[in-house]
């Protein structure tokens, strides 16, 4: 796991306020109901920060945000380097 992925996991654990919950980069988040759709804007902004990319939200679907690994793969696929 990369350092950025770990930072994202820490962020998610804080966000969903279940400190004892153990999640890794492959834990389903959206399909399992752990995070709701409204939290996804926050996660996408965090992903932009961690990857230093601009991620066009129109190219992202809920399934692209289902796990931390998928989030970073999505950033790689659709993200644009920031100036």
């Amino acid at each position, binding site marked *: 796991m990369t350092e950025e992925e770990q930072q994202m996991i820490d962020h998610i654990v804080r966000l969903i*306020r279940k400190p004892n919950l153990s999640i890794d980069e492959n834990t389903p988040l959206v399909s399992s109901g752990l995070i709701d*759709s409204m939290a996804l804007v*926050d996660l996408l902004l965090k992903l932009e920060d961690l990857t230093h990319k601009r991620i*066009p*939200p*129109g190219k992202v679907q*809920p399934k692209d945000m289902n796990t931390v690994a998928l989030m970073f793969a999505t950033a790689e696929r659709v993200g644009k380097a920031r100036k």
Partner: protein
Amino acid sequence: MAGSMTGFRNLIDALAAAPGDRPFVTAWIDEDEQETVTFAEFQRCARSQAKMLSEHDVSVGDRVIILMPQSIPAMTTFVGAMMLGAIPAFLAYPNFKVEASKYRSGLAGVTANLKAKVVVIDDAFPEELLGHVSVSEEARLLRTSDSKNVRTEVELPELESHSEGLAFIQHSAGTTGLQKGVALTHSAVLRQLEHLTCALRVDGAKDSVYSWLPLYHDMGLIACFMLPMVYHMRVVMQSPLDWVMHPETMLEIISKYKCTLAWMPNFAFQFVPRRTPRNRWAQYDLSSARALINCSEPVRSSSMREFESAFSCIGLKSGTLQSSYAMAENVFAVTQSEVNRPSGPKQIWADGQRFRSMHLIAPVAEGTPGAVSFTSSGRLLPNNEVRILSESATMLAPGYVGEILIKSDSLFTGYYNRPDLTAKAIAESWCHTGDLGFTLEDELYVIGRKKDLLIVGGENFYPQDIEEIVASHPALHDGRVVAMGLYNADLGTEDIVVVAEVEREELLTDTAEVERELRNLIVAGIGVAVRTIFLKPPKWIVKSTAGKAARSATREKLLKEHPELDVESGESKDA
């Protein structure tokens, strides 16, 4: 009904009359990527889309559903359908924020009601949602490739003059479930635009529009697409999702393109200054803007003040913030504030007690203890009339609060395929809006939705008033407050319950003090005691796709978590 004074038979004629080399739509993707088409290029692409649709047997009167991301191709497809005399409708495109199950059921309902000949989607439309697009037996699903680079001219047959024919269907802003399709004729749309441009003193050669509004809502479709198309103005548009992610881009776009007009719902006037880091404000220049119009929610003077005081230092002129009352059923605007008034929309103060107990506006001086303030939505557009109706359906005099009824020469004739809903909405040419408001000195003031009204012991309370007071407490998150009425069977009336999010989770360890302060604030502000205040952790309140607290969804969530509050569901009083 008489045609439009613009002299155009229909919307397509109006587009055809535009100066070909003038920029029409600029799609802002991000700071490095923008795409602009001129009026001539736009028409060429629209004709090509018309050709594509006609090859799939689309003709006069057929419904065409457009399920595409907010983009120039979505707009040219819409106009292409109109060029054939077909009736297009934009529906919301799925995105990462929408609840998949909610989206699916909404999509299935709306598409079934429209019985479209074709449904146009883009190549990226998620496969898993396709099964929920209801397509009638002879209908087709079309994937459209991006046709912006069409260079060849496509000849289309000359359309008959059909100003009284349906131009398109726009959906009323329903929050959940079935949205209602509002069917509009070319002439109704042209008349509305003529009244609106007159009120706003639009000059197509000098004005330009900024928009992040979705094309499937009236503000995005009428004010930010049809208005520029018919009056030959430029519109610089970004997608609602891009805006929600980075609201600061609004300032960037207006500065760069020197846009003069924009429409936004009330919450955006707070959202933009709060989400734009203060140290970046100075990069922007809002001096080009001459009307930023607060529309589609009750207008709050505090939100207007927040925007104005934040951005007056970067060129925002006093009097630029304006207001309007609009609805899909009237094509768009019913009222518009006077654009030349230097102080912006009129604001009044009224006695709070008489407002709540007698539903009467008794003006008092600004700052009078217990006074409530209201911001006007402006004066009626030409050929628009309004009536205020009491609970017992009698017409009320100016200064009395009741349901707003409207009548105009741009009023819709019915909800598409829904005579049941039409019969409920229109009676003797008057449309019952379900909104509450009053008139005073020829101005209309809109207070809220009839169904949101809280009635406690015969006194009316408006959830927005309570929410505004509660949100002013520093321990709470701005805008994350919902006030609601819950039936109290013992008292036979409603009790007021407030749910609010604290700013930081640790504030929940001792809530007694915050609750006490909130009760005091509410009593001091509007003279009512709330039954219960629920303080919840950050992100507890359910929000709409636009980032607003969603009242009914939050109410459902609260009742689920606190079933003891839900005395109504077990009773049959309304059944």
